[in-house]
């Protein structure tokens, strides 16, 4: 395991300390917790947004704390949802009186922990609403299972719902926007290498030199299918097809695109993927209004990437264009 760390047990704490020192003009930590708050939290007169989840997805989620996006991010251990008490502390500290909105990625752990925090907060009279993001099309949706995973599309929720909250919208309206994003966003990823959780020290799976895992999540779980690596264009095409053939009808519409690096894949390769994605969408009469290429939602040092499409209307376009000023996302 080649990692630049001290003790595995201290990785999350030390990372948060280093993050706070790097971005002290944006965030401050909440003493005794793994919560990073907007420096000026609680911001009164607006709904507060909170997201979080296991660590290992940096810059998510603390990187999105700031004007126009999140009011607080709650970090769990590596790939492990934070506990209800931490989320509850974040809710109390971020609440500016207009209610708190939770952005939860759809994992059993995240949903349970955040919902328990919500119950604690509601018991104290704080209005809390939530959205559960499930953009990953890798696994068929089914009412018998816990449904689909939330992956890179979550960043679009932070951006759009965050901008809506910044406008002074009500908790109900922020929720509506978040739900609109979720309803219109689809993603799919691929991994070329596994990643290693510091505490375990072992790769999450093994791949041959010429293999890739298609339909990968962001926690080092194995994907849906193991295949031979093909060309950038072919891989992009395979992911795009899954995304386009899912339940959102992107045909003839406007979309925002995100090509998200999972960790070790160089920016040059993400741009090569983006080149294909843009061409393919153009050829199919889908108009790209916003493009984001970079590392937005990672999986430690995994090599690979995901493609996200969000169908946008006037409101979503305007929310994407709205000002955002956070360590990892500025507009």
């Amino acid at each position, binding site marked *: 395991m080649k990692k630049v760390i001290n003790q595995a047990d201290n990785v999350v704490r030390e990372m948060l300390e280093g993050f706070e020192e790097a971005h002290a003009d944006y965030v401050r930590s909440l003493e005794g917790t793994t919560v990073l708050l907007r420096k000026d939290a609680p911001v009164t007169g607006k709904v507060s947004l909170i997201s979080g989840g296991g660590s290992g997805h940096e810059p998510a989620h603390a990187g999105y704390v700031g004007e126009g996006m999140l009011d607080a991010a709650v970090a769990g251990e590596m790939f492990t949802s934070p506990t209800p008490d931490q989320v509850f502390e974040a809710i109390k500290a971020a609440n500016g009186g207009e209610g708190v909105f939770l952005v939860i990625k759809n994992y*059993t752990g995240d949903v349970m922990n955040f919902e328990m925090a919500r119950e604690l907060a509601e018991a104290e009279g704080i209005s809390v609403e939530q959205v559960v993001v499930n953009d990953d099309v890798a696994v068929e949706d089914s009412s018998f299972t816990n449904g689909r995973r939330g992956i890179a599309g979550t960043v679009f929720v932070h951006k759009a719902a965050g901008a809506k909250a910044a406008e002074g919208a009500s908790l109900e309206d922020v929720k509506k926007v978040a739900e609109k994003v979720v309803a219109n966003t689809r993603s799919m990823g691929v991994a070329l290498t596994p990643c290693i959780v510091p505490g*375990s020290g072992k790769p999450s799976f093994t791949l041959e030199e010429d293999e890739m895992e298609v339909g990968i999540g962001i926690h080092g779980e194995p994907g849906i299918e193991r295949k031979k690596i093909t060309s950038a264009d072919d891989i992009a095409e395979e992911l795009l097809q899954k995304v386009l053939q899912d339940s959102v009808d992107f045909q003839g519409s406007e979309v925002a695109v995100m090509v998200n690096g999972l960790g070790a894949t160089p920016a040059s390769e993400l741009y090569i993927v983006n080149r294909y994605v843009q061409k393919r969408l153009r050829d199919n009469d889908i108009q790209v209004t916003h493009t984001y290429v970079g590392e937005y939602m990672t999986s430690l040092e995994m090599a690979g990437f995901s493609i996200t499409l969000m169908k946008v209307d006037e409101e979503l376009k305007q929310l994407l264009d709205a000002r955002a000023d956070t360590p990892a996302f500025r507009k």
Partner: protein
Amino acid sequence: MEMKTEQAVAWIEKANALIQSNKEYLTELDQAIGDGDHGLNMSRGFQEAEAKVSGTDYDTVADVFKDVATVLMSKIGGASGPLYGTAFLKMSMTVKDKDPVTEANLADAVEAALNGMKQRGKAEQGEKTMIDVWHPVADFLKNGQNVQADKLEETAERAMNETKDIVATKGRAAYLQERSKGHVDPGSTSSFYLFQALADVWKKGE
């Protein structure tokens, strides 16, 4: 067996010992069909739970369980944290004012825990989760008159092993669909350790 605070504390100590020595194994199981943190999560949570209950004087078993619930809830995280937290919270509520805790009380407590977990996690039996261990154990405790500790352990162990053939429909393993088959569920394994530890304490108290 009757459970007093000593036995309750001993249960947690024994459970922790089993979890610590199987930490890597639990993580391996979770790497196969999950995200590879179950051993770390359980180890972190039970280490703290044991430290808490070993260092505290308790009046009632309910108080022991309550502290365990609080620690697990705030230290494990992930899917298993809220579930084990809920389990001990429900057990604590069920054995409130029972001193000592009888076998019948314990049977009620485990059943309450099971129901709480099912509600929290929205899983039923047969979905390849820890519910698959808690369910038969709860049934076993409820139906048995003068239950034997060995049988308790056997029931949990068999149930754990049976998760191997199930295709997961809840938890992370569900993303693997058919590929989740052929692996024992990590959470069922940690639950087995919990009941193995209970059986152990039980035997000593018999």
